[in-house]
């Protein structure tokens, strides 16, 4: 964490108090380290001058923060009304079958992981998902299969 201390300082400097920088700092650490480890939790708490329990509360509350590694490629599939009306639930089922994992799990080779989420704000391209950082819409089984094949190598 010490490597990106200057970045953290710059972030903290934008806010009226250090605690307010917690979310952006967590995003930064997760970006750099892939997840937020218990050690990082303590370091962040010390850096911001807040009790560790409150850092842990925040991490457990917000679904974008993770303490376990994700797959190299992550499916974050929407299951709310608009996507579900156009087959979102079936897409989720298909991914589970193809990869042999349940929502929240990663394939044993670490290549793919699946998360099921609520509305991502892209109902006009339903059924859709967030594929790593991108929004990918108008999904069907074929598109899913292609993505999996392309990234299995």
């Amino acid at each position, binding site marked *: 964490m010490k490597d990106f201390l200057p970045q953290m300082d710059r972030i903290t400097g934008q806010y009226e108090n250090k605690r307010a920088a917690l979310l952006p700092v967590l995003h930064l650490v997760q970006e750099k380290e892939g997840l937020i480890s218990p050690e990082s939790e303590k370091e962040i708490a010390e850096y911001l001058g807040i009790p560790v329990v409150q850092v842990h*509360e925040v991490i457990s509350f917000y679904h974008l923060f993770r303490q376990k590694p994700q797959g190299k490629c992550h499916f974050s599939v929407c299951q709310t009304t608009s996507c579900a009306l156009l087959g979102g639930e079936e897409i989720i089922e298909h991914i589970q079958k193809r990869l042999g994992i349940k929502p929240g799990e990663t394939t044993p080779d670490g290549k793919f992981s699946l998360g099921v989420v609520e509305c991502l704000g892209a109902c006009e391209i339903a059924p859709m998902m967030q594929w790593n950082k991108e929004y990918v819409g108008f999904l069907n089984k074929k598109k899913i299969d292609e993505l999996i094949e392309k990234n299995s190598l």
Partner: protein
Amino acid sequence: MPKLTIDGKEIEVPAGTTIIQAAEKLGIDIPRYCYHPALPVAGNCRICMVEIEKQPKLQIACYTPVANGMAVHTNSPKTLEARQSVLEFLLVNHPVDCPVCDQSGECKLQDYYMEHGQYNSRLADVKVKKEKKAFSIGPTVMLDQERCILCTRCVRFADHITKTYEFGVFDRGDHSQLDVYKQLDNNYSGNVVDICPVGALTDKDFRFKCRVWYLDKTKSVCPGCSTGCNMTVEWDKLRPHTHKKARVMRLKPRLNPDVNDYWMCDVGRYDYHFVDENRILSPQHKEELVSWTQAIETMAKIIQPLKDSKSMDKIGVLASAKLTNEDLFVIRKLFKESLNVSQVDFRVPEPPGHSDHFLLKADRNPNTAGAQVILPQESADAQQIIQKAKQGDLDLLYVFGHDLVKLFGKDTVEQISKKVKLFVFQSSTVNDTCGYAHLILPSAVYAEKDGTFTNCQHRVQRIWPAFLPLGESKGDWEILSLLAGKCGIQLNYKKSEEIFQELAQKIGAFSEMSYEKIADQGMVLKK
């Protein structure tokens, strides 16, 4: 000041008072879980919702300030319906653990349910399972996440009172879990069990020990240090055979805004076993059990000749700041005033205990301030008295409870045992000194006494006797009364209150005090 009516009763309260506080002043107890007078308001349980005339929605009483002309209804049909709905929601996932839960009988979920519940359950679904059930979170407390109703009292306690930040609520929705991030091992951990309205946080010390409906409660004051936290001794009157004859089951803090508020520390809370364990039960003379008559005679035989020859410098008395004001006054009356013994002191060289920034004081005696006023230092102090005893200059050494072996070392006590004609040891509890004393007199503990202690803020506080002294033990002043009588001094006290009345007359600091005025919140000494 705003004037309002609650359930038709009018009351005027300072601006800023919340409805729940105003109701309390009227003797109306609005149901509450998350609200606690000593903690910041959370407003999350929603059970204190009340109906306010001219307002379309129900409002939570713990957060809503009173307004002039407000009309509040705490039992209207709308209010009762809302209350029932909150109870129903809380019971959706709450495990029906009552048969195995220590909170049973003092559980707010049970109590409010019996008063207001929806007796026909509408639940046909599985309850949410949580990770930790019957899980130790520290040396004193057990956690059951499923029983937790997430009122966050414990979180606010650890954040604002002890500032130790052990607790947090993790995840969200109905999967929220109360947990600790680090072990709950601060000196006030026991208080979270008091404030938990349900059986989520339970005391390991009390776990499965006794059903609360068997408990009798007696008001008292903790004798653990000079703070004198107000507390209640809770003891099992009917079934001591189930606890190897132990009577005291637990101690609970009692509210006193001037001393300890709602809290007590773990050191005091868990130190009650000495009331029932390791007690001296009979008078003993040189390893032989004797009767009280014989014991008193033994002492009188030593004292009489000294009286006749006016050699009272051959008597040394080591009083104790653990004795009540009444005990100390009788020591003063008997030894100092009637027998003219000047070598009476309580200031033993005790190593101070550790203290914290809150309630626990380094002085581990409950009545140092009282002893200082009642037995002001004259000639010899305790160290000098021990020296004299060691040198053989004393015929009678009368020690009240101190473990001299710990304070002065085995060799000194051995010497004393050899050199002093009669080494009297009056104590409730067995300790190493017993092996060296000539005459052992069993005395009562605080929980068996009627009397007063004076705390470090010079507040005189009452203790009440929960039960009779164990075995043949007697109260300290009662023993001295017997001795006085045998020495021709009639003290004639029938109860502690009489002693206190005389004490209040004779000692300026206590003037105008009485048991009635002291009541259960205490009274400060005069300067």
